[in-house]
């Protein structure tokens, strides 16, 4: 502890039990306070902290804004949390090369705004973008509504600087693409803090699209909406974003924001196209036709930038607005093949009904990334049952040929379910990849991989493990 204070200064180290409570959570369900929290102010300080911890055999958990939904920042094994909150500089923006170099603690939206100031565009837009950090976005390979057209974070990271679990500072990629040798960048993107602490990121910027058009289409039910979405993709048009909202969600959004969505709609599709003016005009016409042909009872386009912003604000903040219906919720993140989506949704709804939860759906329909949210009240409905229902939902998605997570990561939430989708050899190869960076397993222990006991003192963790191992037959 004394060493940490020496490195970062008294005011940047927290150790009192009651203070540590505010670092025991992220936006998911697992809770456990760390043994200390440090906020280094430079890469050197990060490296010194990691070295000091490594010398003592202490584990480390990197932390951005703590908006993660899968327990990635929860400190297992009495780990020390290293927060990137003070690493908040945008180091440079190169307008010609279209590259931004930033520190990991910069919020996503700050990069978007800085890029826009020089006429450029930073595409990744997780709904948490106001607050979630670039470091966290890289570590979870974050997506967002516009990932449909632009891809998730991994398509936008050109290079990273990383402090390894043993304290060395290394760099992969950077301004110049196609460096010889192994391309480690995609391996680090999505590594959820298990291979080192990201201290600097080179980001790809794009030209601002010339024109943007946004439509809201109303359907009688989810199935019609889903069919229309498939028809749009099949037509060859690639919308920049395509989101579906169901009736429960619409109610919550109307209560939280002044969006005035049609309250009697069975589902809504939010479709956006971006590009050159001639292109968007063409696409707009065909999208509108397809929407109507597939049962849209009403198609409205956002007339002004303000209207479009309000729609997106409602969509992006919508997850939190669901707490207006029930105080607690469990948000899922499975991805299923688009053709199976209507069937999966039907089964998911049936599970929710069987368990007695309200269910809300608001998701990236374009990539088949479902986000069913189970709404409940933890004061009367035990969390164990919710997790059981969630495991059933995961199983339905996997049985349909889907994946565990679209964008929120595996973390502590779904680690025990990994063997549902990966065989022992696959997992072993992944483990060895990790060990090459973290031979002692001190970097974010207990995450991503199934089995381990590092986090076994967290009750929710034990429950999930029992479910994962018990339900798989």
């Amino acid at each position, binding site marked *: 502890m004394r060493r940490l204070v020496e490195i970062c200064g008294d005011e940047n180290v927290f150790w*009192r039990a*009651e203070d540590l409570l505010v670092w025991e959570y992220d936006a998911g369900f697992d809770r456990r306070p760390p043994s200390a929290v440090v906020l280094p102010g430079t890469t050197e300080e990060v490296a010194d902290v990691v070295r000091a911890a490594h010398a003592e055999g202490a584990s480390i958990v990197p932390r951005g804004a*703590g908006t993660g939904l899968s327990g990635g920042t929860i400190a297992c094994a009495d780990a020390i949390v290293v927060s990137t909150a003070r690493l908040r500089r945008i180091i440079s923006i190169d307008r010609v090369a279209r590259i931004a170099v930033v520190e990991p603690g910069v919020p996503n939206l700050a990069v978007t705004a800085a890029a826009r100031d020089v006429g450029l565009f930073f595409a990744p837009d997780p709904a*948490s973008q106001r607050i979630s950090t670039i470091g966290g976005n890289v570590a979870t390979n974050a997506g967002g509504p516009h990932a449909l057209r632009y891809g998730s974070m991994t398509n936008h990271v050109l290079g990273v600087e990383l402090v390894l679990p043993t304290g060395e500072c290394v760099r992969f990629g950077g301004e110049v693409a196609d460096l010889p040798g192994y391309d480690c960048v995609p391996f680090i993107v999505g590594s959820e803090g298990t291979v080192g602490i990201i201290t600097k990121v080179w980001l790809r910027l794009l030209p601002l699209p010339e024109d943007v058009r946004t439509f809201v289409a109303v359907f009688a039910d989810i199935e019609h909406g889903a069919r229309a979405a498939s028809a749009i993709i099949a037509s060859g048009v690639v919308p920049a974003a395509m989101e579906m909202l169901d009736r429960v969600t619409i109610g919550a959004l109307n209560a*939280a924001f002044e969006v005035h969505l049609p309250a009697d709609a069975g589902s809504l599709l939010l479709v956006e196209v971006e590009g050159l003016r001639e292109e968007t005009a063409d696409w707009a016409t065909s999208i509108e036709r397809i929407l109507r042909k597939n049962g849209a009872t009403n198609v409205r386009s956002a007339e002004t930038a303000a209207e479009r912003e309000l729609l997106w604000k409602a969509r992006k*903040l919508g*997850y939190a607005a669901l707490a207006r219906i029930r*105080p*607690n919720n469990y948000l899922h993140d499975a991805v299923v093949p688009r053709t199976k989506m209507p069937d999966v949704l039907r089964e998911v709804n049936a599970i929710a009904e069987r368990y007695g939860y309200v269910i809300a759906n608001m998701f990236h329909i374009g990539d088949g990334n479902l986000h069913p949210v189970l709404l409940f009240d933890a004061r009367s409905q035990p969390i164990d049952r919710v997790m059981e229902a969630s495991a059933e939902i995961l199983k339905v998605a996997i049985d349909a040929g889907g994946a565990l997570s679209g964008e929120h990561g595996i973390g502590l939430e779904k680690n025990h379910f990994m063997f549902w989708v990966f065989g022992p050899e696959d997992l072993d190869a992944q483990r060895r990849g990790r060990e090459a960076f973290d031979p002692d397993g001190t970097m974010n222990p207990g995450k991503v991989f199934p089995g381990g006991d590092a986090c076994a003192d967290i009750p929710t963790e034990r429950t999930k493990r029992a479910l994962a191992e018990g339900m798989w037959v």
Partner: protein
Amino acid sequence: MTTAFDTTGLERCIHCGLCLEACPTYKITQLETESPRGRLHLMGAIADRRIDLSRSDATVLHLDRCLACRACEAVCPSGVPYGRLIEETRAAVAQARGISPLGQLLLWSVSRPWVLGAMNAVLSISERTGLRRLARRFLSPRLRRLDALAPPVGRPQYRPVQVESPRSSVALLLGCVMRASYGDVHTATARVLAHFGVEVVETPDQACCGALHAHAGNKEEAIRLAKRNVAAFERADVILVNAAGCGAHLKSYAHLLEDRPNWAARATALASRVRDVSEFLETIAGDETFGELAMRVTYQDPCHLAHAQGIRAEPRALLSRVRGLELVEMANADVCCGSAGFYNLAQPDYADRLLEPKIDAILATRPDAVVTGNPGCMLQLAAGLRSRGREGIPVLHLVEVLDRALETR
């Protein structure tokens, strides 16, 4: 022993963190301990008895550093009632640990107009005789700060304005600091109202609204004052308030008195008739303009107007009705200036760190004057400008601007 308190609404916080960037104290520290999500989590830990209030100075400090500006509440999609929760928590803190002696003295004086009046008189005499300047040299830093932020002396008292055959009438909350130190703002309010044929009727039994007491955790006194005002204003159709903090608090009387059988309904009725002066003027002004005033101003959103009452457009709309007046928006106009009741006395370090960027933002607009709508903000901004040697830029209440503009007609 930790005191039980009402945590209704706390369960709605899903820890999403969307409120963090809106929080002034998080902005300056980047610390979860100084964030709304962190403070809500601490409140939960207090309620669950994981934290013992009487022993945890650190927790109390994090809670004390909250401005109660409610910026977090305004952006929270879940609708977590932060303002109410921090008041409940502070009442629990006060019960477990008591209120600081300085806080007690200030609270005691604001609810007694004669004390404020007497202080005002003493200060004004010492100001004129030069005694105050002399005394300043011997004051401790804390007291010097108190002195720098003391309400202005020598501004004229409130003088009611006669209206011939008024078309309607309103009651005006005179308040504590406003009454003692900003009487001329009340007069300006009455004159602007008179221009629209609205008369201010006297409400002699009214008291200080009790907002400062509630924020500091003195719930008992807050309830006593609320009851007095509910009774005093019972007959008024509209209760007009020109101090944002008081307006927000009057509007929350319904909650404050909700479990008092004889008062709840009356308090709800009263709260529904409370209007901020900008809200009211914007509804009665029709298409009228306010005369002319060639001036470049910038507008500071008082927290308890923008965040607590959702009033942002009205003051700006009113300013746009003044011909020749140019409104230049400063950056982050709705971020707290650090005034927040006694905050600038209780948390001087944080208050200064909040005030610095605020003054920078103001100066960047090169204004002739700063306009706002709350006495606390006026004091804090004026102190900030003075500390930079820019006392030449006056801080005006919105109604003062409108009143001056009307004079030109």
